């Protein structure tokens, strides 16, 4: 147990330390920066609410990645899937709300968003199952395509002509996802927590989850065991993209109510290290996501206040990934020594 705690804590601390050194080299006080981040992201009431709101899409993306990674599939096309799903909800919701009650509007929008994201993952799934083509490249290509396509959709067919900035029509605040108690936090966080628990249950406690894991750890063995690897690959892509799409829907229906052109939070690659830190464990990922959301929200305040652009978060994420891999490597080495 001590070992696994160290394996998680060491990369985080190393990343923060090396990141701090970079800040120092750029002439900023790292302690003041981190203090401000914690202050604004966790300790202030409004910042804490922001953190929880931000956690909702991050958790849904994380759960989508857990499914894919456990099945041995690198879904790096998250951003395209997320944005296209967001466009679907943003375009549909203001139209549907005129005729339908808001609960039905939200359900339909979520469904359509999920379907759109799933559709965007069909090509990589097809190329992988049919020609064995590496999905890393294909999902990346689809994501670049999707980001531009989402912009085209917002600027041309779904553009709200009454607005000077290119954006879709706006869903009134009262019709968005319900707020929890007296806070600004929307119920998307509940949806995302349910999704994370469901994914964890399915992946660890059901036959279907076990099948996916077998495909992930050894596709050839899976084939010999009589599993339909192709169909399972399609299913993995669909579930993974669907969860990501739900994240896009929740972000639009809960926070923005509309989608602006060129809006791309680019959460996709940022969530990967969280999923690795959690070792694909559904419950553990919740904690890391919260920590990361604090960093994001606090970092956004700090970028305005302290003149450290938010790009710094990218550097931290990269450092986290590298130290994570390094710790894993050292761990592997010491295991080998013990065996020898």
């Amino acid at each position: 147990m001590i070992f696994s705690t160290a394996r998680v804590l060491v990369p985080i601390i190393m990343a923060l330390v090396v990141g701090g050194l970079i800040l120092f080299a750029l002439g900023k006080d790292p302690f003041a920066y981190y203090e401000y981040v914690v202050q604004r992201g966790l300790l202030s009431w409004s910042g804490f609410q922001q953190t929880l709101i931000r956690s909702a899409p991050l958790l849904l993306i994380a759960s989508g990645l857990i499914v894919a990674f456990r099945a041995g599939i690198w879904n790096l096309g998250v951003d395209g899937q997320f944005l296209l799903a967001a466009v679907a909800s943003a375009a549909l919701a203001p139209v549907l709300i005129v005729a339908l009650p808001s609960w039905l509007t939200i359900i339909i929008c979520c469904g359509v968003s999920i379907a759109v994201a799933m559709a965007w993952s069909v090509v990589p799934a097809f190329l992988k199952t049919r020609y064995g083509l590496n999905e890393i490249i294909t999902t990346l290509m689809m994501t670049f395509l999707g980001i531009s396509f989402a912009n085209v959709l917002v600027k041309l067919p779904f553009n709200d002509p009454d607005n000077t900035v290119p954006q879709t029509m706006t869903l009134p605040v009262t019709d968005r996802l319900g707020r929890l108690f007296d806070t600004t936090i929307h119920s998307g966080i509940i949806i995302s927590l349910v999704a994370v628990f469901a994914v964890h249950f399915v992946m660890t406690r059901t036959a279907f989850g076990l099948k996916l894991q077998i495909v992930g750890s050894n596709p050839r063995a899976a084939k010999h065991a009589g599993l339909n690897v192709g169909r399972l690959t399609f299913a993995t892509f669909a579930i993974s993209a669907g969860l990501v799409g739900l994240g896009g829907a929740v972000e639009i229906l809960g926070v923005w109510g509309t989608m602006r052109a060129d809006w791309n939070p680019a959460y996709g690659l940022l969530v990967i290290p969280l999923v690795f830190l959690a070792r694909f464990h559904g419950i553990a990922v919740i904690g890391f996501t919260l920590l990361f959301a604090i960093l994001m929200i606090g970092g956004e305040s700090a970028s305005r206040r302290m003149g450290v652009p938010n790009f710094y978060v990218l550097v931290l994420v990269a450092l986290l990934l590298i130290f994570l891999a390094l710790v894993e490597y050292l761990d592997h080495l010491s295991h080998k020594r013990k065996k020898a």
Partner: protein
Amino acid sequence: MGGLLTEVFIASLLFGAVTVGIPLLLAGLGEQISEKSGVLNIGIEGMMLMGAYGGFVAAYYTESFWFGFLAGGFLGMAVAFLMVLFCVLLSMNQIVIGIALTIGAEGLTALLHHFQFSRTYPRMPEVPTLDIPGLQNIPVIGPAFFERHPLVYLSILLVVFVAWIFRRTQIGLNLQAAGDKPAALDAAGVNVKLTRACAVLTTGFLAGIGGAFMANVGAGLFVPHMTHGAGFIGIVLAMLARGKPLWVLLGAALFGSSLALTTALQVAGLNIPTDVVQMLPFAMVIVVLILFARHSYLPPALGLPYHRGER
């Protein structure tokens, strides 16, 4: 609309295709060298971006394009060195490290740019060219191909050079063996890790120059995240070229033209959102992959770290 096939349109299309095609070519060739030796270099996007930033800063302050390319190359190589350290020497996961290097370079270059230039985007002066006498006067083709910076000619010569290395030299054979059957190379007394390390460093150098070309010649300035997937397109080019440098050149020309269509269409007075045109190269990649995926080829030991004595 009537003026779509005019001389001006074709000239600007060809000119732009060469300008955006050269970085793709360098990235694709570099990636091909890495992949041949068995390293899937996902970090190439980061290497290009680092080269773009470093190359721009160096060229901007020294006012020398050559110095900029060289600096870009060495910065790309510096990122590649991390890849070598983690993935080749320590056998860590190539995909995780590749993603990390790309994200890290995105963040770091944007940060450095912010602290260096704040919100200004200084521009490079006009690109000096080496005009080829005689050929430069051919209408349309002349300005696009024969009035360019010498690096353009060098990059195209590099295709022949790399093809020669692959086909006729011991180095080429070693690279191929490192990707196909590393154990055999090891048995023949050649150091597998060293071979791969050299391949990845070369990739970094070429990708870095490509990035610097993109910033200094293509855009004339540095913008954060400016490579916008060019490195990844390089990976696709290498994948579809099946180890043949000439195919990388053809691919770079194809994707270069589709990217250049943006500016060319604007010259022709056609007003469509840039997003539509930005989709083109990626849509093209997908279509090409669907049509020709069965012909793509990757070395058997690609992405697998080499451990002596392990099977």
